[in-house]
Each structure stands twice: as C-alpha cells, then as structure tokens.
C-alpha cells in the first residue's frame, strides 16, 4: 500500500511541477503578485511529495518487499541494513528518484531561504527549476518506474552488486548528486534572470552561495568516489579518466570557474555575459553527464542498463534544456551593458585567465570523452582515449593554474602590480625553491615529482599570503593581528583554505612518484619488504559475513622490527551474484599508506598479493577536504552578509544622525 501511495505521490509531484512551470512565470510577465507567490509554496509541496515517494521506495527496500521489481533486482533479505538503505540509489530507477529529490531539495531551499530576492526573479527561477523537475519526473514515470510490481514475487532477491556493498555507496552518490544536480539551481537562476531581463551584481550575489554549496558537495563527492575506487578496486589507482569520472569532473571544473567569475561580477559588475553563460554551461555538463551515464551510450562499467528508450528520452531533455537556455541566452545577452573596466594585470585579469584555463581544460576533458563516440558514429572507426591522452593535454593546461593561484590573490582589483604581487610571495616562492632543491639533493626521485612538491609548497604557503598581509599590514603586532583576524571576512580565509587544499592534493599526487610496489606470492610465515616496511603474512583463514564468505590473510606491518600495524586483506565471495570482490588491507602510517590486496589462495598454499607503499597518499583526499572546508567557510560568510543591509538599517534607525 505504501508503495502505491509513493507512486501516486510521484504523479502528484509531476502535476504540481507542471503547474509551477507555468503560473509563476505568467505572473511575473503580467505583474500578478499572487501568481508569483504561488511558486515557493508549490515548490515546497512538490518537495514533500517527492520526499514521500522516496521514503516509500526506501521502505520497500528496508522491508525486503520482493513484489517490487526494483527490490528483487537489487536487494537480498540478508543484506545489511545500511546497504538496504543505500541500495535504493544503487540502481538506475532509484538513483533517478534521488536525482529529482535533490532537484526538489534545492527548489525548496530557494523557496525557504531566498526570501530577500526580487519577487519576479524568484518566481521565474522556481518556474525554470520546475521545468527540469517535470521533465525528469516524466522520465521516471514513463521509462524508469521504481514502483513496478511483479505478478509472482520471488522468495529471495538477487542481491546488490558486491562492488556497491560498501559504506562508500552510502556517502558518494548523495554528495555527488547534491553537487551536480545542485548546479541546476544556478542554471535556473541564470534562465530566470534572462527571462526577467535584469542581470546585475545582485544576480551574482544571489547565485554565488548556491554555486558554492554545490561545489563543496561536488568536491567531496568526487573525492569520496576516488577513495572508494582506490580501496575497492584492488590495485591502488584513484583516478582512471573513466568517462563517468570525467562526467563529474566537467561540472566541477565549470563550477570552479563560475565561483571565480561571480566574484568579478559581484565586485565589479564585469563579465556578466560570461557568468550567465557559465551558469548555464555548468548544469548542461551535469545533464550531459547524466545522459552519458544513464543512456548506456558508453558501455561503461557504470552503465546500469542499455535501454535505448531511456537514452533517447534523456537526449531529448538534454537538447531542450541546453538548446532552450542557449537560445534565450543568445536573445538576451546582446542587450547587456558592459560592466567595469580593468587592466590586463589585475585581480580581474587573473580571474579571467583562471576562467580561460579552467574552461579550456574542461573542454579538453569534454572532447577527450566524446571523441571516440563521435568518431565511431561518423566513420565507424574505433579508437580509445585514455589516461595517457589526458595526462598529456589536461595536466599541462591545469598546472599553470597552480602558479597563478597565489599570484592572482595578491593582485589589486582594477590595476595590479605583478612585481609587487611577486614580492608579497617571496616567502612562498623561496619555500618552494628550497623544497625542490632539498628533495633533489637528499631524496632524489622522479624530476616531475620533485618539481611538483616545490610547486605544492609554494601554493600552500602562497595561498595564505593575502590573508597574512591583511593581518600584519603596517607591521602590526601579533596581538593586533589577532584582533584583525576576527574582523577579516571569512571569505578571505575560505579562498585561502580552498587554494591551499588544492596545493595539499598536488603534494599527495606528486608523492606518488616515490611509491613502491611489490607483486609476489606469499606463504604463511613469509615476509616481504615494501618501501620502508616489512610485511609478514601470519596466516590465512576464512570467515562468514552476512551475505558473503571471505578468505583473508592476517598481515603484520613492521618497521625496523617494531610492529606498526596489522591489516587483513580479504577476498570476498558473494554467492547470490556469484561474484568476488577484493577488500584491500590498508594501514595508514603517518600520511602514507601500506596497501595490500590479495587474490585467491593457490592450491599449493601460496597467496598472490599486490603490495604498495604509497607515501603521502592520504594528502590527495585530505586536500579535497580542506578545499571543501574553504568553500564552506566562504559560504558561512555569505550567509551572514545577506543580512548586512538589514542590520545597517536597524543600526541607523537606533542612532539617527543628529540633525545639523
């Protein structure tokens, strides 16, 4: 019964979305405030229905209701509760439901929190968001109904793909969706502003927090996915340039560019056209990503099912929304007045260069991902575009950004002085050089790693140069600097942390050059050296999990005879799906990790193992956490700033100026 009401709620949500697509926009056009005021309430109601529908599907999964196709295909009564809940989005239908839920969450958030924006802009924005909702609700109801029943329910389900039975599934997809579906709201803002016809600094100020929020979630989502791949896939890789990874990287790059250019638009009213374009682009890339993943056009390991109907449907949505918004953009962008002027060497200039490099690297990923498809479609010739291509093209485009990052922050708005900016970075540049030279002299190793470590040191220190200068300006004492610390806008710290996080990630990537790898066979009692550690396989035994059985080795990690850690690499067998999955044994020692993954035990009692020592590898993900922290810091500042005008007015009312 709950299942049927969930299905019905989804239909009601579609009806509400359709109403919300038309009435507010009409109201904004004829200036009817009552029609415009419908938008927030409809958005909230629609959110309520979609949330209920989502709850209904979760309920079916948790109670193992095997009369539902979706539950039978993806669940098992013995599956742990965590995976019953996260398994809801571990399949095509459920993940699309999560998709529209995130759309609805953002619409509801705008309805609740963006109360100080112009009425007509809010009505138009929520209406555009409803168009997207309606399109995807229709997609779910027509092609991917998660509530389809079976005539004769089986006794047991087919279980979830073993690779997905991992805590990673509980965290990664929701975060990623909050990120890349969250970009829908910047798209709606852009389209809403184009329809309203007013595009000014207010738009940038309104859209920036939402972009930041989506960016923070996307950053965490991508990092989480990469760590998940790292520890489950068994050979210690963390980024594969897989088309589906690229699909999430592209919106991230566009969103990063967008955050930076809204800064220019907010402060200087410049780059208006470009900001609007990027807002549209970022979500368009999310849509393209959804199409690539859901349609089965890439025979990727990520593709759920190759159903042509679904592919065509999403393609139509894609064409309508990208084409429609670009047409609107073309019609309205010409009328925009150019904003503030700036010299090439200035904060604005550096942000323009940042945008050029980010969008070019984004375009490179785009071309690299879609080229094989296009070429096969046009000529029938099959080629592969893999990691070597992206390392040769994307990386050189992205590296200059690291040099630019601290430098741009030290440039003044309007007209900057490159030499003065470089002078402020003396310490950072010096530190970078020292790190490089010291590593080259005492540690050795791949030249690229040595240089990148220096660059990373420069970025990490240089990111705080601007904040440091503002704190200690005029030779202020530490106490005075401490007082200034409180007064400094959090956004300044936000960007410092976000940039430093980038540097930390770079350091982790650079350190992979010093990693060690051993591929060997071990008998119980035998030891092997990897990097600075000795690993001893104590014994091999078996145990039973809730819905799998596993064979695992007990391994002791020693350094100079002292026991540092114990790990248990395992190979799990899932009988329902007849699949095996490696569970790597990982010991985090300092910031590095000892990583061991095993295969089956050979008949002669030997255990094939891959063992890695990965120095500083944790920094790769720690860096993304710092980036996200910086974004969140910036976001908290923006939230406070929304009320600034109100507080100032209140203060003015409390102490009226004495009349002269």
């Amino acid at each position, binding site marked *: 019964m709950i299942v049927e009401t969930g299905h019905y709620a989804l239909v009601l949500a579609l009806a509400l979305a359709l109403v919300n697509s038309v009435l507010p926009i009409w109201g904004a056009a004829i200036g009817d405030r009552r029609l415009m005021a419908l938008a927030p309430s409809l958005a909230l109601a629609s959110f309520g229905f979609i949330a209920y529908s989502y709850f209904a599907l979760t309920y079916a999964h948790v109670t193992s209701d095997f009369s539902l196709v979706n539950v039978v295909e993806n669940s098992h009564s013995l599956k742990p509760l965590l995976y019953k809940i996260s398994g809801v989005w571990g399949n095509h239908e459920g993940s699309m439901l999560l998709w529209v839920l995130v759309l609805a969450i953002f619409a509801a958030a705008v309805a609740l929190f963006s109360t100080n924006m112009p009425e007509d802009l809010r009505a138009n924005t929520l209406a555009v968001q409803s168009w997207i909702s309606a399109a995807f609700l229709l997609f779910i109801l027509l092609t991917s109904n998660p509530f389809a029943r079976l005539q004769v329910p089986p006794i047991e389900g087919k279980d979830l793909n073993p690779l997905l039975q991992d805590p990673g599934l509980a965290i990664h997809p929701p975060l990623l969706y909050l990120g890349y579906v969250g970009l829908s709201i910047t798209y709606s803002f852009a389209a809403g502003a184009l329809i309203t016809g007013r595009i000014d600094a207010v738009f940038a100020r309104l859209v920036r927090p939402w972009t930041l929020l989506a960016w923070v979630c996307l950053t965490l989502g991508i990092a989480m996915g990469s760590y998940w791949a790292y520890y489950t896939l068994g050979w210690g890789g963390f980024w594969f340039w897989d088309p589906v990874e690229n699909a999430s990287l592209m919106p991230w790059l566009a969103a990063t560019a967008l955050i930076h250019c809204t800064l220019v638009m907010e402060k200087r009213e410049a780059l208006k056209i470009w900001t609007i374009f990027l807002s549209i682009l970022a979500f368009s890339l999310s849509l393209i990503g959804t199409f690539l993943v859901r349609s089965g056009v890439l025979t990727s390991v990520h593709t759920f099912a190759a159903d042509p109907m679904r592919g065509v449907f999403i393609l139509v949505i894609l064409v309508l929304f990208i084409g429609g918004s670009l047409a609107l953009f073309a019609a309205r962008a010409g009328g925009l007045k150019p904003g503030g002027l700036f010299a090439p060497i200035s904060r604005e200039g550096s942000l323009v260069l940042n945008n050029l490099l980010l*969008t070019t690297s984004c*375009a490179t990923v785009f071309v690299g991902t879609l080229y094989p498809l296009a070429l096969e479609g046009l000529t029938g010739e*099959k080629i592969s575009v893999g990691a070597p*291509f992206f390392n040769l093209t994307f990386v050189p485009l992205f590296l200059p950004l690291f040099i630019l990052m601290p430098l741009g922050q030290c440039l003044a708005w309007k007209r900057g002085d490159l030499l003065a900016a470089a002078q402020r970075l003396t310490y950072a540049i010096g530190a970078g050089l020292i790190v490089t030279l010291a590593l080259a002299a005492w540690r050795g190793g791949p030249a690229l790693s040595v240089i990148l470590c220096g660059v990373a040191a420069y970025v990490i220190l240089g990111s705080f140069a601007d904040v440091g200068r503002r704190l200690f300006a005029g030779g202020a004492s530490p106490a005075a600097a401490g007082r200034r610390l409180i007064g400094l806008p959090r956004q300044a710290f936000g960007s410092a942390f976000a940039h430093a996080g980038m540097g930390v990630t770079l350091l982790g990537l650079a350190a992979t050059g010093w990693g060690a790898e051993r591929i060997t066979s071990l008998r119980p009692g035998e030891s092997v050296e990897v990097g600075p550690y000795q690993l001893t396989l104590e014994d091999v035994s078996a145990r039973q999990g809730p819905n799998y059985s596993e064979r695992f080795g007990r391994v002791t990690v020693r350094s100079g005879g002292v026991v540092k850690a114990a790990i248990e690499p395992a190979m799990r067998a899932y009988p329902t799906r007849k699949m095996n999955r490696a569970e790597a044994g990982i010991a985090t020692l300092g910031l590095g990790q000892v990583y061991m993954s095993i295969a089956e035990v050979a008949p002669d009692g030997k255990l094939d193992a891959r063992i890695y020592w990965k120095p500083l590898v944790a920094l790769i993900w720690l860096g993304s956490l710092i980036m996200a922290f910086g974004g969140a810091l910036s976001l908290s500042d923006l939230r406070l700033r929304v009320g600034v005008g109100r507080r100032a007015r209140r203060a003015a009312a409390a102490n009226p100026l004495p009349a002269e």
Partner: protein
Amino acid sequence: MKKPRFRGRAVTALMLAACWLAPLSARAVQPDEILPDPKLETRARDLSAQLRCMVCQNQSIDDSNAELARDLRVLVRERLKAGDSDDAIRTYLVQRYGDFILLKPPFKAETLALWGAPLVILLAGGAAIFLGARRRRVAVLEPGALSEPEAVRLKTLLDGEAPSS
C-alpha cells in the same frame, strides 16, 4: 561515480565484469607473469599501462583482471624477451587489434581535431578575451550619441535654466 551494475544475461556486461570483479582467480599482473629481468619488466609495465584491455571500459591491461588482458600481458612480455622494441610491439598489436588498443590515440588525420582541440580552444578563448576587452573599453570610454530628450535636457542645463521636471 562508481556504480557498476551488470545484467547477467548480457555478454558484454559479463566481460566487463571480468575486468573488475575477478570471477576466476585471474588478477591484474600476477607474480608468475613477472619477468626476471627488472629492466624488461619495467618496460613491460610501462607498455601495458598504455594498452587497453579490449573487453573493459577504459582500463589498461596492466590494471585489468580479465583473462584477455592476461593473455596480452604475457604476449607483450614474450615479445620483449624476443628482443622487440616497444614500437615494434605496439605496431604488432595495432595490426592485430586496430587503434582501439592504444589508450593514447595515434596522431593522424582522424584524430587531428582531438589532439588539436586543447590548443585551438585555448587560443580562440584568448583571442575572444582580447577582442572582447578592446570592444568593452571602446564601449565604455566612448558612449554613444545622446538621445533627443537627453540632448534637450543637456541644452537646458547648459543654458543655466533649471530643468522643468
């Protein structure tokens, strides 16, 4: 996103599953494959990382668990032992499997747009920014002629009379 899900009945999906899930005891590079000569082995690893596992999605034979990838790894090592150069091995594999096997697409007419895209986009973007900046400067510094009411208003102001409105 790491969310594979396979339809048991689809052959391709099964083959893909082989790359990630090791249904047999096959694993990416196994101890028995490794060459005794560390120099040759390093070359073998570098080559393998550039060759695509034909039944996988974007995975190199070095990383893949599929049987076919193992066969190819062994083949590469046999060729190396026989004294072939890296290029000779690549050419041999391309003759057998086509360009599809190279993770780094070859530079030729069909891939010109692929390899050229990053540079072209960067230059076009740079040019657009340069021209846009110049146009903006002109537009802001030399505003257009006054409209008729503006001209009238300016005239009244200049004539020293108070504006009527």
